[in-house]
């Protein structure tokens, strides 16, 4: 088993490096400006969806304020980039992202400690309330540009870098959620009262998952700010949170692979079907209802794509063939 895991890690790393090289080559030669934009948008949505999956899928609590935390990150990074403390570039991006994460995590802890004592529906509504409060406050204050929004943020146009950041983010979230701390979170999803009785500090674990979620929402926000160069609080409203929720629900609550696949799909497909744009939201909402009625676990359920499983499958097939030959 150990060997399989090691194999799997090596194989994944090779695949990712190959993908990265491929994307770098394509994005500099074949891709047009439009495709590169789409690629960055896909990266942002993947990070958002995977981050929301930590709260909705792994912790099992509905979170309707995800866009609020994204906007916190976007504004923090945007304001840092505009302040001119550092020269625009990857270094400034990374420092800005760290600041964005710190801001989002602090807010998530302040919000989370009291809010996560509540369960289920109440948590959904309180996160919605916080998302709206964040939006209203950003629009109210002057240093954030008020209702006009924040513009002329130094832009960073480097799709391969965004892709690398996305892969690193997914890797961090995945390894945290499969670690000891992550399994505690999964236990709470399965049965909160039982895990409480087992001596798990449920509030702490919930706040931990919530803060992790907010942290990577802020990473996505920082990516968004540096990619677009302009921000307005209005876009990070309730509907944006719902769009991300649809990605998580469609892919399968609790499945990282599902969140990634559906985030890619739900970003690329609407772009391809531009002429049906006006039907998009109707289809989204119908999809939500139908999935919940007929396949509440989402397309992939809690399954993950694992290289080790494929290796196992292939080697077992090969092994059987050898036996056949003998």
């Amino acid at each position, binding site marked *: 088993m150990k060997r399989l895991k090691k194999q799997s890690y090596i194989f994944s790393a090779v695949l990712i490096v190959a993908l990265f090289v491929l994307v770098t080559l394509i994005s500099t030669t074949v891709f047009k400006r439009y495709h590169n934009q789409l690629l960055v948008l896909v990266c942002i949505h993947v990070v958002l969806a995977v981050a929301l999956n930590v709260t909705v899928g792994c912790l099992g609590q509905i979170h309707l304020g995800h866009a609020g935390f994204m906007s916190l990150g976007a504004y923090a990074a945007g304001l840092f980039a505009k302040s001119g403390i550092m020269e625009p570039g990857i270094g400034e991006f990374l420092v800005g992202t760290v600041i964005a994460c710190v801001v989002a995590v602090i807010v998530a802890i302040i919000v989370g400690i009291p809010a996560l004592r509540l369960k289920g529906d109440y948590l959904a509504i309180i996160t919605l309330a*916080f998302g*709206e409060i964040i939006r209203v406050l950003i629009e109210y204050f002057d240093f954030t540009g008020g209702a006009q929004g924040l513009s002329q943020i130094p832009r960073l146009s480097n799709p391969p870098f965004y892709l690398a950041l996305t892969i690193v983010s997914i890797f961090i979230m995945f390894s945290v959620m499969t670690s000891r701390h992550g399994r505690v979170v999964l236990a709470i999803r399965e049965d909160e009262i039982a895990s409480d009785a087992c001596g798990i500090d449920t509030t702490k674990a919930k706040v931990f998952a919530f803060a992790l979620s907010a942290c990577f929402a802020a990473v996505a926000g920082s990516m968004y700010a540096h990619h677009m160069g302009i921000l307005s609080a209005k876009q990070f409203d309730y509907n944006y949170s719902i769009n991300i929720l649809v990605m998580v629900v469609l892919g399968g609550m609790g499945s990282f692979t599902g969140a990634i696949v559906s985030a890619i799909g739900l970003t690329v497909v609407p772009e391809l079907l531009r002429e049906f744009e006006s039907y998009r939201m109707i289809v989204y909402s119908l999809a939500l*209802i139908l999935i*919940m009625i007929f396949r509440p676990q989402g397309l992939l359920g809690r399954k993950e794509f694992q290289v080790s499983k494929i290796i196992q499958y292939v080697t077992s097939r090969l092994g059987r063939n050898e036996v056949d030959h003998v």
Partner: protein
Amino acid sequence: MTFLLQLLNGLQLGSIFALIALGYTMVYGISKLINFAHGDILMWGGYIIYFTIPFFISMGLPLWLSVVPAILFCMALGGVIEKIAYKPLRNSPRIASLITAIGVSLLLQNIVMKYIGTGALTIPKIFKANPNLPVSVNFIITVVTTAVLLTLLMLYMNKSKYGKAILATSEDYDAARLVGINVNTSISLTFVIGSAVAAVGSLLYVAQYAQITPTMGSMLGIKAFVAAVLGGIGSIPGAVLGGFLLGIVENLTRAYISSQLADAFVFGILVVVLLVKPTGIFGKTMKEKV
């Protein structure tokens, strides 16, 4: 004097919140579901009023009669939504029904956006202004209608056979079924009554604000839900009290602090209430069963 006027305006807004909150609180009480689509049912009621008003004008009838088709339509809509979207999910995890409710809300909004348009539509004056009165006609009609509907609803719930069945169902599904109550009928009836009350709310809303948009329901609905939580979810008088309080707070914030911050204050109240007394003013504390 202006303070008193603001207070009365708040009371009027609060009455509309209260009527919507009634629907939320009843549905939550019986099926433990936050019906996110409730505000959008109200929005559809507004559109029905808009489209039937020309008919009432041509017939020379009073315009407020357009509430009748709106009520009928909303009752049907509420019933259909319950049958199609919520009934199959009655025994699934709460997260599934919550997401479905969000889906239904988005669906109702986007159908209107797609087929009618995203812009605001203007509705003619429904109640004639009377300069002899010290307060506006809209205010009197709104507050009186709310009071009458609340009384009727309380009487219905506590005295009639079906009302008692609804109360029993919301206490305990299985026990209600054991004593011969048709649980499905009770739940459908709750949705239908809630939607009818929402339709009355939409008349009062358009009488005051004179315009409708496809998205007006979602924010109104969320605020009404805050009112329901504030009063104690599941409690009918709680919903009305919560609605009044919320309307007054929102209006006073708009008038004296900042119109931009009004929403932040409304949600701030929700946060404080949930943290201090999650069951609300009239709510009962429930023990979680293992």
